[in-house]
């Protein structure tokens, strides 16, 4: 599971990185808000842990920016101050949880585990990409025409929309859509990509699935 950590205090950053890696997360760590935003826009993360007070761009700005771009990755904010306003602003900006410093490492790890478990609940909304509207409630895919997707087709397209600014590969889809189901393999993924390509065409959408050695990406 991919985790993005943004914490400007060098020592704490190092301790947290090691702790998350020890728990089995694939960690990218940043020391300021700008770098964190750049990473979050480029890579599809499963969870983001972010300090509020950071140089260049604060955590709340990063968060608002991500949410405005439809990136719904769960975010936990670390707050130095125990001020209520700070926490309220963070939650209103789209944070899923917060933790006040100083905190117990055990609690942080437990909260991150809880957030990643909840991930499935984020898909109920309507998503838009190019001329497409994808309904998370009914699995209806709409452009000029409309069609109903199967659960897996929906999840593959959702992953592609949520990661629309970079390629995602078969491995990513196998772990995120098929939950590493042993009966699924790269052939399964490419068949579902093929279904999606044709269904995008069937709704007369201009959106295409681009295939490269780096994986798959949507194009308007």
């Amino acid at each position, binding site marked *: 599971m991919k985790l993005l950590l943004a914490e400007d205090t060098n020592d704490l950053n190092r301790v947290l990185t090691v702790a998350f890696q020890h728990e089995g997360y694939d960690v990218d760590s940043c020391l300021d808000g700008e770098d964190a935003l750049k990473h979050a826009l480029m890579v599809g993360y499963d969870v983001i842990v972010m300090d509020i007070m950071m140089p260049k761009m604060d955590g709340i700005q990063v968060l608002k920016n991500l949410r405005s771009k439809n990136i719904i990755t769960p975010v936990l904010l670390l707050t130095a101050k125990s001020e209520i306003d700070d926490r309220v602003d963070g939650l209103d900006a789209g944070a899923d949880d917060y933790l006040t410093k100083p905190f117990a490492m055990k609690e942080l790890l437990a909260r991150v585990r809880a957030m990643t478990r909840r991930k499935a609940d984020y898909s109920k909304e309507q998503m838009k990409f190019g001329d497409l509207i994808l309904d998370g409630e*009914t699995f*209806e895919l709409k452009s*000029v*025409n*409309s*069609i*109903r*997707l*199967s659960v897996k*087709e929906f999840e593959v397209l959702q992953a592609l929309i949520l990661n629309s600014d970079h390629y995602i590969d078969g491995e990513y889809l196998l772990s995120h859509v098929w939950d590493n189901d042993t009966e699924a393999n790269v052939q399964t993924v490419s*068949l579902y990509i*093929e*279904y999606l390509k*044709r*269904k995008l065409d*069937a709704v*007369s959408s201009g959106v295409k699935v681009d295939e490269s050695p780096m994986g798959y990406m949507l194009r308007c």
Partner: protein
Amino acid sequence: MSEIINSIYGSHLPELECAMQFLVNEINVLRNKVKEEVGDDPIEHLNYRIKSEQSMREKCRRKGLPETEDTALRIIHDAIGIRVVCAFLNDVYIIREHLVNLSNCKVVEEKDYIKHAKANGYRSYHLVLLVDDNIYVEIQLRTISQDTWAALEHQIHYKKVKTENDALIISELKRCADELASTDISMQTIRDMIRKT
């Protein structure tokens, strides 16, 4: 004898028969060619008819047109109707391709309600051909699932009894149409995968 004299089609029934038979033969020739080439019959079933005297007159009245030979043969284009129900989506387009390229036929109207489904979910490929610059023929091409959907929709449509469930029924039929369309594409993709290996 008097029946022929009174017919809304005048003395043109044999020409209608002939044009219809010509297209049915063309479709069957193509069908056998595809069967030989790939082993599968692209057509599930093929229906054709000349609109009955009574239906044609009713249609004229409904449209406020005079019940004349000219209306039946020149203004209304479905005196002859052919419906081709195909197994797979691609088959629809293979047959369409053959029909629009026939040298003695002119395409008068062409509507792809598969790529651009009607608001209620109706999907079908519509063609009107003019055979030998003389006889109009309406051809509907669709898949089995599109045909199944149309059959049910037709039933409901013709009940004409309004109930409080109408909105629900309409939106549910639309959902079914979109699910069937999705399945049609998946089945086509699977068949292509089987043929490739």
